[in-house]
């Protein structure tokens, strides 16, 4: 199906999120969409999938102008969208989420649906238990669920908005194989990403957006430097960071073991020293999550002890850990981090150390403005969390981090950030090493792990199967370990 967007405008008050966008996607192509944070990519994709109506402009499908008043219209026309934060009904189980929105209405044949679900999962190598509650799925699995659902509903144009942020390398290669197969079957795919190597790997054509406008188009392959130049108007250079001396152990786990599930098999011991950065690699849901939750006091281990900066905090709760300057930043931005409906100012007030009874809104506003400025968040101090673009939500989360920290625990810290911002954010994070903060982060991006970590722990099905020196290892070695394919586990 060929798709054409003509002169799309979408404004939010004074913000011109889409300012006259025209774009053509040929049938059976994988089309990349690039652009800095807040460029308007998600907005354009939401217009195309019927979630937002454009102020003006036209969507033409196979030569016919179509009206997209709702996502129903879009999916009926064969346009399916996978959101940046997959919209899944968390209290329901997987198969209920799958059949929701099916056109079958009351004559829904659940057995048949379940069977088709299993077939689709099989075909694309997804491994999701249809009976498990959706809230137990990882972000990656939620995406897989959404993809099979859209395919099942008959999508022939598939929109993926940053599908690879927050999923493992393994899930990503599976996804790419799937997308390529779909394209040869005639599916048109629009792929929004900040990762140039992914775009290079996958796409046949790219469009680059900046501040609501199309600033360039190119037939792939194109050297990444040129794409960066199109996006930012200049080359972005990644500087090497100076090494920092490591101090005393800030985080010390001894013989940790959970009661059930991940990390229940083998006890885990680990010391992270002040100023040290430890990266956690592994497929989504291999235990990194449980590990971080134990380190942050969100979850208590069945046995073993946790020490923070020399104090034993075993069995204490999250707030005690927080008081010991431990901060945890999970992956779900709007689920576990920001609060919809509250403004940036209110977020900073909540995150701040204010003790008083009354809020000094004048002061709070000034502080928020300063932070918006410093973190170059696209928005104002009165913007609500949900009105920010994905990357800007991430900036807000990082901006809310307390100034003093002993241990910083993060999942996918630069998820959704464009290259320039990701680099800048890491500069900020690494600066914290100087004052003795230990950083532990999980990431699906092997380059990120290699570039910023001192040590890398590789998780495989609930165990740490490798501990690598980041200076002495490479993508291939980690990749093998992540797949659980090393023979007698990596060197410690």
């Amino acid at each position, binding site marked *: 199906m060929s798709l054409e967007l003509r002169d799309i405008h979408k404004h939010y008050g004074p913000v011109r999120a889409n300012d006259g966008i025209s774009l053509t996607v040929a049938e059976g192509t994988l089309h990349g969409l690039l652009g800095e944070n807040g460029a308007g990519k998600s907005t354009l994709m939401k217009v195309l999938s019927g979630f*937002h109506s454009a102020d003006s402009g036209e969507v033409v499908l196979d030569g016919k102008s179509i009206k997209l008043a709702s996502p129903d219209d879009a999916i009926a026309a064969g346009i399916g969208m996978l959101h940046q934060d997959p919209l899944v009904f968390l209290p329901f189980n997987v198969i209920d989420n799958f059949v929701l929105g099916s056109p079958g209405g009351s004559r829904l044949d659940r057995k048949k649906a379940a069977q088709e679900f299993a077939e689709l999962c099989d075909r694309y190598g997804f491994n999701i238990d249809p009976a498990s509650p959706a809230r137990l799925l990882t972000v990656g699995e939620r995406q897989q669920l959404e993809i099979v659902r859209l395919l099942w509903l008959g999508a022939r144009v598939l929109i993926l908005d940053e599908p690879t942020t927050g999923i493992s390398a393994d899930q990503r290669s599976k996804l790419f194989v799937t997308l390529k197969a779909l394209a040869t079957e005639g599916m048109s795919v629009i792929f929004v990403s900040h990762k140039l190597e992914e775009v290079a790997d996958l796409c046949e054509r790219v469009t680059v957006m900046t501040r609501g406008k199309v600033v360039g188009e190119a037939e792939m392959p194109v050297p990444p430097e040129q794409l960066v130049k199109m996006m930012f108007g200049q080359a972005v250079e990644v500087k090497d960071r100076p090494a920092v001396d490591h101090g005393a152990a800030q985080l010390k786990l001894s013989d940790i073991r959970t009661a059930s599930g991940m990390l229940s098999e083998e006890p885990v011991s680990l010391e992270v020293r002040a100023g040290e950065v430890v990266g956690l690699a592994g497929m989504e849901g291999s235990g990194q999550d449980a590990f971080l939750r134990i380190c942050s006091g969100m979850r208590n281990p069945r046995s073993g002890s946790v020490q923070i900066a020399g104090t034993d905090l075993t069995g204490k709760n999250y707030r005690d850990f927080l008081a010991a300057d431990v901060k945890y930043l999970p992956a779900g931005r709007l689920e576990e981090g920001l609060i919809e409906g509250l403004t940036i100012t209110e977020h900073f*007030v909540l995150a701040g150390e204010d003790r008083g009874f009354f809020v000094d809104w004048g002061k709070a506003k000034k502080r928020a403005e300063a932070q918006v400025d410093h973190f170059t968040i696209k928005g104002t101090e009165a913007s609500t969390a*949900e009105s920010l673009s994905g990357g800007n939500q991430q900036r807000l989360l990082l901006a*809310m981090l307390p100034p003093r920290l002993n241990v910083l625990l993060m999942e996918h810290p630069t998820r959704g950030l464009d290259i320039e911002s990701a680099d800048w954010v890491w500069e900020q994070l690494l600066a914290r090493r100087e004052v003795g903060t230990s950083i532990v982060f999980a990431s699906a991006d092997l380059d990120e792990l290699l570039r910023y970590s001192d040590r890398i722990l590789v998780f495989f099905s609930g165990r740490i199967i490798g501990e690598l020196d980041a200076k002495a290892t490479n993508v291939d070695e980690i990749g093998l370990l992540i797949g659980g394919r090393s023979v007698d586990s990596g060197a410690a």
Partner: protein
Amino acid sequence: MSARVQNLLLPIAVVVVSTVALLFLAGTNPWDPIRFIIEGSIGWPPFEAGTASKIGDTVMVWVPIALASAGLIVTFNAGMWNIGIEGQIIVGAIAASWAARTISAPRPLLVFLTIVAGAIGGMLWGLLVGVLRTVGGVNEIFGGLGLDFVAVSITTYLIIGPWSRSGVASTSGTDIFPDAALLPSFGGTRLSPLAIVITLAAIGGVWILFRGTLYGLKLKAVGANRPSAFLMGIPTNRFLLGAFMICGALAGIAGTSQATGFHFKLIPAISGNYGFLAILVVLLARFRAFWVIPISFFFAMIAVGASQLDLRLDLSSTLGGVLQGTLVLSAMLGLGWAAYRARKHADAADSAAQDAAT
């Protein structure tokens, strides 16, 4: 017409049209019942001489509805459906009755003590809903409903049991409280300036709570997204309990006003269902404190004025309840429609997504 004006006018228009239609269906000239309701509650023409007693009654119905509504704004902001508000009003009334019956003290002190007792009673009953919710994992709607029934049963037990009138065991209520325990009122009417002041102070307090205080902001955060609030270091359970206690205390004062300011004794139906009405008020006011003042007054007028209907028009006074129900439903429809239109224009990807998926 600007969209904002449309969004405001539309619900009102829906309310008027549907109410008139309902009255036509009931077989009367729509104007008559409306006039009699006004006449029965504040007099016709309004506020004429000689209507002081009616107005006093209406104001003293407004007091508990408005107090309960103020409380409910707190629990709603914390994301809780405090259906248990009825029980909190009732237990407040029981506690105030206990103080009125047992404590002997000079009037100002005793009145103060009844109010404090009522507030504490309601607060503890609210706390119980909160504890069931946070510790026991019992949904606050079910826990609240259950505790409503328990409160009603306790009232009945007290009235026919330990607190029954000397000689007669009747469900008409306890003995009238001693004068020293009654809310001081204004020249022969029920109208109590003290109750009005407390009510306005409560509404103002709730407004300030969510406008200017850290506590209010944290409550809002807990209500909007508990996991995020928890991660920000807010003790979410403690805040939920706090919300139930604040709401319960205000409901308890509402119950006190019912006992010592309206009926002057404890009766079985002491809450007057004003807790449930308050839920409607708050929904109509869309959780904005100051709107509670006129909207609950309007409800109080219907509640008081509807008793005129059967006398004057041979219509059942339950028509008042039907009117209130229609009003709320049609206003909700109007608001829903306005929201739908607003969404069409301004968009809310989330709700659209939910519509799409259901």
